[in-house]
């Protein structure tokens, strides 16, 4: 037999509980351990093989040579889809994902960063 208001008792119960949402950004948001956030580059490990450039599905990363055996990585944060394929592909562990995710910016040019 059906009747109305089946969820009403539950609603009263939930009124006594505290809210499930958090007041982000005034309350810090937690991310899990293996979260795929913004990239970090270790120049001393990079050998300039450019495998990360080749596997990137979004053409977001470019490795540039600055001197002999010295490289820098330029990432287009607006293109990056944070899949972490570059991190997985790198044989020298020169790239890693960090837990940083607050990347929003009003200026598009500022999203092209050297990491």
């Amino acid at each position, binding site marked *: *037999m*059906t*009747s*109305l208001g*089946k*969820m009403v008792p*539950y*609603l009263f119960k*939930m009124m006594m509980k505290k809210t*499930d949402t958090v007041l982000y950004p005034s309350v810090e948001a937690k*991310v*899990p*351990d*293996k*979260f*795929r956030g913004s990239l970090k580059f270790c120049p001393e490990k990079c050998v300039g093989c450019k495998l990360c450039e*080749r*596997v*990137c*599905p*979004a053409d977001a990363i470019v490795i540039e040579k600055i001197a002999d055996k010295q490289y820098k990585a330029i990432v287009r944060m607006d293109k990056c*889809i*944070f*899949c*972490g*394929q570059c991190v*997985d592909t790198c044989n020298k562990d020169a790239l890693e*994902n960090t837990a940083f995710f607050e990347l929003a910016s009003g200026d598009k040019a500022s999203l092209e960063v050297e990491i």
Partner: protein
Amino acid sequence: MSKMIVPLGPQHPALEEPESFTLMLEGERVAAATVALGYNHRGMEKAAESRTYVQNIYLLERICGICSHSHSTCYVQTVEALAGAEVPKRAQYIRALIGELERIHSHLLWLGIAGHEIGFMTLFMYAWKDREIVMDILEMLTGNRINYGMNMLGGVRRDITPEQGQKVLEALDALEERTEYYKNVILQEQTVAIRTLGVGRLSREDGLRLGATGPVLRAAGVVKDIRKDDPTEVYNELDFKVATDEHADVYGRTVVRVTELMESYHMIRQILRQIPDGPLSVKVPNRIPAGEAAARYEAPRGEDFHYTRSNGTDKPERVKVRAPTLANLAAITHMIDGGFLADVPIVIAAIDPCFSCTDRMVRVKDASSGRDDVWNWDKLRQYSIEWHKKRGQDLGYRI
């Protein structure tokens, strides 16, 4: 009674995504309905041809935001078949685990949407609150809430630790209790019964004739599930029942989805109990041997189909995707026919539509001559300018 034509979409508050429905009304009843596709065409199949097999995992994962793992699993299965790679058992179990967690997230999301469409906002709010439990679990296991990026060619990218397995089990206990509660709400709440019983009927015969798939077909009493009929991965090692219902309406589809949730919890417990130790992946070469392969996968919305043809290079020659919503679209017009206008949003929502997944290819057919050929960009542009001119909208383009 005079007839009136009402357009629903492409932009309409009742639709989550753009799609055009044209409804011919006789009073409050829909006398005829047509659906026009193609408002969300993203050219993904063409884009896949210019990307490598590895890059395509991430591209095809983004066909759908909700059943992303289904699409990427289906695609990697075709590539693995071409390369002759034997995926390790542990990787297969992890794929099935993420696949079932995705089904839970998708069905809970749908339950909320269904509540929203029938004006039962309380159900919407609380179903989505509980969906956060499974979203957190997915984020913990894969690193992302959606678009998990768990698949790689030849296996999976991340392992599952025993501690993570324990957390999944704890979350399942909470979810199971909540799902049991929602099942009672659906079966006993009058709001749900009034708005869904007998609405959008699709009989067993019509469902099979129109090629419906997934929960839409199972709600008509047809036992059809790719996980049982053509088991990939480890589904043949798991003990589960195919959820069916005899109502063959929106109510039946709701019951089927909630029952599937319970089956998914049961399956995940088995997966975590049976998962063997071993490697996570095998090596798959960059260049895939020439050939063609197809794969099917039971996505939360129904049967997902991928086809890949390789020419021996590191990029596929052709990738074809048939998302489950396309199979269900033909049934939509049939389900809307004869129903009330006010029921149209919930009937459309009841197939769990994903219109952006559906739009794969646009074929232009000349209505006057019946010619059906491929148009290039210039011809399409020319046609568009003339089309606008005929309607007195000269946009001032020079040809």
